[in-house]
């Protein structure tokens, strides 16, 4: 049983394309004029070009085309909700409701180059300028790589003892097998010119003022620190866990199959984290896993594909139920009482109908929030996150920010990569002036 579980955990949703599959799939791309898929990609990868390069038996050239816009193209190929981004825009949808499998082709190309362990880039000559990057997640890595490429010396300050951010701590294991997140970080850092200092969060021993004094520019990409808490009676009883923490624990565990995942799990939420946590629980041996969401299925942040993954793994999706209290027995969770919801006059409201779902474990996946505290030196905020302009500039002329910690983000890896890239270009322009 343990072996079976382990195998399931390391199995991938999509096995990588073989050379022949990639050749056939690449031939399906029409090389569209002003291609809609490019517009739909948050990082603007020249998708038709990289697919054409695969077709022409030049996968490493294809990888460079991808990395030119998205240095974390390998991870994005694995975790992007392509069915709502590039693949949704593919003109093949109109023709046959079957888009070119862009994400899988992107993985084919990036895997080829990363397996060869060569960087397609050479750093520019040193500019003598230094940049501090806070956070070694997707935004920080993207920013750091681009700046290093342009000849600047970058130091990343990372709160954890390991780089990668949510790629390392927040994404289900089956999406990134074989320690891919760390391999990718190593690949990104192999450009040179980037130092990483671990266990260095912004705080009493590392202030923004210090960074501003020691570096020519600062980029903040620390993500969201806190998860939302469930404000219902009983939320603090034993057996109620945070889904993000559960995934982080799982990703860092030496023996994931030894984790206690419960038998009867209720996951509260409707996003990617809820799905990841539910599927992981199921793969690790939980008997019954139910995702309970307060709105309808179309409103779930998890894409239809993700929902399907959950369902095909035996996870039950229940919608229109919101938690009203956690029921405990001897200090341990025994069930969750939900109230039926309905949209009335355009707002979601409880109907008064209640029902208890018994369970021995609850995972909360109800979103993360930004912890705006005084380490930010009073940077302007917007919607309780850091306010930036279109170039990632904050209200401080020496500080840029991007990724989940800024206002207006969509919580996608690919968007964080773009934010880091855009900020790096802006920083470079300023440092070159």
């Amino acid at each position, binding site marked *: 049983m343990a072996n079976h579980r382990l195998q399931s955990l390391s199995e991938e949703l999509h096995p990588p394309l073989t050379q022949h599959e990639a*050749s*056939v799939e690449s*031939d399906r791309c*029409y090389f*569209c*004029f002003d291609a809609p898929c490019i517009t739909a990609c948050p990082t603007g990868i020249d998708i038709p070009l990289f697919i054409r390069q695969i077709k022409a038996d030049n996968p490493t050239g294809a990888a460079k085309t991808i990395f030119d816009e998205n240095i974390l193209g390998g991870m994005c190929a694995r975790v992007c909700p392509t069915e709502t981004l590039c693949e949704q825009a593919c003109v093949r949808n*109109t023709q046959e409701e079957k888009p070119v499998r862009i994400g899988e082709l992107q993985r084919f190309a990036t895997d080829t180059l990363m397996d060869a362990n060569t960087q397609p880039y050479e750093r520019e000559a040193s500019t003598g300028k230094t940049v501090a990057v806070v956070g070694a997640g997707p935004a920080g890595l993207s920013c750091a790589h681009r700046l290093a490429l342009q000849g600047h010396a970058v130091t990343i300050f990372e709160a954890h003892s390991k780089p990668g951010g949510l790629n390392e701590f927040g994404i289900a294991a089956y999406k990134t097998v074989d320690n891919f997140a760390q391999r990718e970080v190593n690949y990104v850092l192999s450009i040179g010119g980037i130092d990483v200092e671990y266990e260095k969060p912004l705080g009493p021993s590392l202030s923004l003022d210090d960074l501003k004094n020691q570096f020519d520019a600062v980029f903040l990409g620390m993500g969201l620190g806190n998860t939302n808490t469930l404000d219902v009676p009983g939320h603090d009883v034993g057996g109620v866990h945070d889904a993000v923490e559960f995934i982080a624990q799982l990703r860092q565990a030496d023996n994931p199959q030894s984790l206690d995942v419960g038998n009867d799990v209720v996951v509260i939420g409707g996003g990617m984290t809820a799905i990841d946590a539910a599927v992981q629980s199921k793969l690790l041996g939980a008997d019954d896993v139910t995702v309970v969401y307060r709105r309808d299925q179309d409103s779930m942040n998890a894409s239809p594909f993700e929902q399907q993954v959950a369902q095909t793994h035996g996870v039950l999706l229940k919608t229109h139920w919101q938690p009203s209290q956690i029921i405990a027995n001897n200090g341990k969770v025994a069930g969750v009482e939900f109230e039926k919801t309905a949209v009335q006059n355009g707002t979601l409201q409880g109907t008064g109908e209640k029902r208890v779902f018994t369970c021995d474990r609850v995972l909360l996946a109800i979103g993360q929030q930004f912890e705006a505290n005084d380490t930010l030196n009073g940077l302007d905020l917007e919607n309780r996150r850091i306010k930036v302009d279109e170039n990632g500039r904050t209200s401080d002329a020496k500080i840029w920010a991007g990724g989940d910690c800024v206002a207006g983000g969509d919580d996608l890896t690919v968007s964080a990569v773009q934010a880091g890239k855009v900020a790096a270009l802006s920083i470079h322009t300023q440092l070159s002036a």
Partner: protein
Amino acid sequence: MVDLKSNFLGIESPNPFWLASAPPTDKEVNVVRAFEAGWGGVVWKTLGEDPHIVNVNGPRYGAVYSSDRTLMGLNNIELITDRPLQTNLDEITRVKRNWPDRAVVVSLMVPCEEKNWSTILKKVEDTGADGVELNFGCPHGMSERGMGAAVGQVPEYIEMVAQWCKQHTKLPVIVKLTPNITDIRFPARAAKSGGADAVSLINTISSIVSVNLDTMSPEPSIDGWGSHGGYCGPAVKPIALNMVAEIARDEETRGLPISGIGGVTTWRDAAEFLALGAGNIQVCTAAMTYGFRIIEELTTGLAGWMESSGYNSIDDVIGRAVPNVKDWQELNLNYIAKAKIDQDLCIQCGRCHVVCEDTSHQAITAKVNGTRHFEVIDEECVGCNLCVSVCPVDNCITMEAMTEGTDPRTQQPISPEYANWTTHPNNPYGSGG
């Protein structure tokens, strides 16, 4: 009721599909398998004199593929039969005796001396074969020894050898032509004036199919070296169709029976050859790609089309399209067509726009009122058909003839009259200036 029976030069076969002289017809075992599968006849692989030739002992074939490894073109450096003459003669005798209703024609290639031809012709007659085909076509190997295409490229030799053969045998004589010449009509005329009963074409096209960029050897590679081979398969069909039509409509060769060869893969290919004047069809590469069972598709497809089009016999189809093949100067310059895009079928790939914009006449929009929209600008459209050619959707773009009004491009009225280049005012040699 459709009858596929064929009578070519008095040689009867249950259908017009013969296997061309090539590896599939080299041995009794192959030919019997072909007849069991339903082929109408064979042209036995070319016999030569003893001592029999030898082949290379490495790869003989090279291929051009689509992305899905569909074979688009095949090239070979194989020579004529590499078995003793008597072995072949014995097998031919046995096959013809056992399969009296199938056509068995024997391909021949011997040095250009009358004695050599008269000797081998006698031996072939003794087998009971239905006819002979003179191989003046093979472009590789044998041509270096003054045979094959070396003969086919010199009309005087063709005429001379054809005459010898007609003198020394009562069997029908087919001259197989090489396409490796500048004007196919000259060798065809020579064959006719030498008394040949028919021509067959095309033989393979001189070709290097690819170069191995690691070893710098042409493919197929024999110990690091390559030699040009003969190219065949679907890729050569258009070249063959034109050559067949040129002979069919040439004043000097009109009426000379033609056995059509060159990339025939489906019934439609065969019907096109027949329509352009071929009296029967020879197939090789399709059989070498898929096996003999393709004959079922060829016969049922051809019969089905003939049935639905009201043709009862092969003779009804032969030459139907020949009157419509003209010299360019005869084409009607008053015929005006414009491309039309069916917006309901358009999938918005934009290829029509970009190729028209980049490489042609700037006659297709990319945006209309600020939104992506591809529409033909009649004022610019010359009716060239490039957009139709590149559109990935069946019937999305069509060429529509204008029958009245004014051509928006030239502002000239549409004329119902026929007018061609010979009478055009711009023609310095024409009668209209």
